[in-house]
């Protein structure tokens, strides 16, 4: 566990939120996850993701190019698994098909762009969002802008090493991890319904 004092929490944090890494937040090692800047066990992070998503008023998934476009084997399966997860949560899905800066031409009702993700968050009044399949550097930019200008809670499901700038991030997210997360969320939903 790190004893870092900086917490990566929902903003708004101002025009120039610092990169979490510059505030001492480190990426999780293999087998770990990160919750609000603290290293945790993956299972704990999954439960936390479930709680945030299931208690959100308007949770939205933002699939990026790596998962929207079936450009290599295995992507379509992962895409389907993400869609199932969003269905269990009852979340909307808004795509991020590419990274061209489209301001002010973007239609925030139907897509999100990493250069001004705040427009999509504000327009749709999104309180919890999930980034998945977005290339890391674009995800980092977008996550910081969201933290800077909105109070949206951000979750990043990352196929690589995770994101310090998300409030919760899993790393090495493959098909098995998505399916496990879906099972955790479904179980939690059962419990919450019966509580």
């Amino acid at each position: 566990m790190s004893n870092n004092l900086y917490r990566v929490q929902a903003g708004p944090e101002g025009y120039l939120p610092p990169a979490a890494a510059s505030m001492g937040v480190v990426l999780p090692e293999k087998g770990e996850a990160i919750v609000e800047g603290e290293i945790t066990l993956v299972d704990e992070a999954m439960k936390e993701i479930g709680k945030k998503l299931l208690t959100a008023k308007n949770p939205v998934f933002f699939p990026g190019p790596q998962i929207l476009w079936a450009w290599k084997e295995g992507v379509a399966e992962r895409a389907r698994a993400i869609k199932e997860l969003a269905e269990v949560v009852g979340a909307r899905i808004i795509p991020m098909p590419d990274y061209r800066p489209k301001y002010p031409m973007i239609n925030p009702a139907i897509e999100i762009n990493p250069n001004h993700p705040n427009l999509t968050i504000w327009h749709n009044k999104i309180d919890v969002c999930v980034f998945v399949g977005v290339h890391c550097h674009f995800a980092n930019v977008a996550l910081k802008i969201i933290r800077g200008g909105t109070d949206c809670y951000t979750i990043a499901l990352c196929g690589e090493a995770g994101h310090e700038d998300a409030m919760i991030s899993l790393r090495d997210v493959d098909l098995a991890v998505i399916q496990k997360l879906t099972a955790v969320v479904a179980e939690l939903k059962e419990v919450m319904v019966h509580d």
Partner: protein
Amino acid sequence: MKKDVFKISPCFEDIMPQEYIELVRENTSPFDNNQGVNGLGGGKELIEEHPLCAGCGLALSLRMILASLPNPEDTIVVGSTGCSAIAFPQVALHNIHSLFGNQNAVASGLKRALKLRFPEKTKDIVVIAGDGATADIGLDMVMQSWFREENITTIMLDNEAYANTGGQESGMSQKGAVLNMAPTGKKFSKVSLPEIARESGCAYAGAVNPSNIKRFEKMVQRAILVAREIGPSYLQVFAPCPTNYKLRPNETLIKAKSREKDNTYPVKEYISPTAQEFLNKLEEGKHNG
């Protein structure tokens, strides 16, 4: 174009914005069909929207250059600081933004790296930069790339000013030109870069304007094909700037034509004998085939 790269994950087809669905399904990719400038306005373009001023000659020329590329999917454009840099993020092909004036050095390295990395493939490197980046701040690196005979094409978008910073004179402004930030008028003549390019090792050098699209296309293609096979090439494109020269947006082409007519911006073409031989073969082949 390798269209199979562009398949939407089937379960996400319902959430994709319409323009992407059309791009994949309706065969409107700008890389298809290779229609050249004739296809402009008839479907998706390599640059579809641009944030430049209304009537900007540079935006028009950029559209026409991109439509003229002989091999867009294997072309990398290297840009530099200036108005065109604002349009490049909207361009649907690989493009790199270099520091102001460094574009020909970046392009040289890129060309050499790609030759090593993809020896069996044709990769065209095309520098597209303004007059400030080409004839002033970057002239050292531009000329050094010609001296080294790098296989790159340099296209200057010549609006005869540092337009993006509010209108200072550039080396390419005409003598006497008065601009917002050059109120007493420029004191020396426009640089003769096509001639300098010819003397510096370019196998092809020219000047053109966008008023005649077929001629424009032909010259862009010649510049790129010569750079691919023979040696460095240079094309100077007159791209009038309505904002800094206080023209109405619909006067851009009128201006380009009148400057050609009064010989203050003539169309020029210098071709080395080797390049000429190569182009003759290519163009004969086209006519016979």
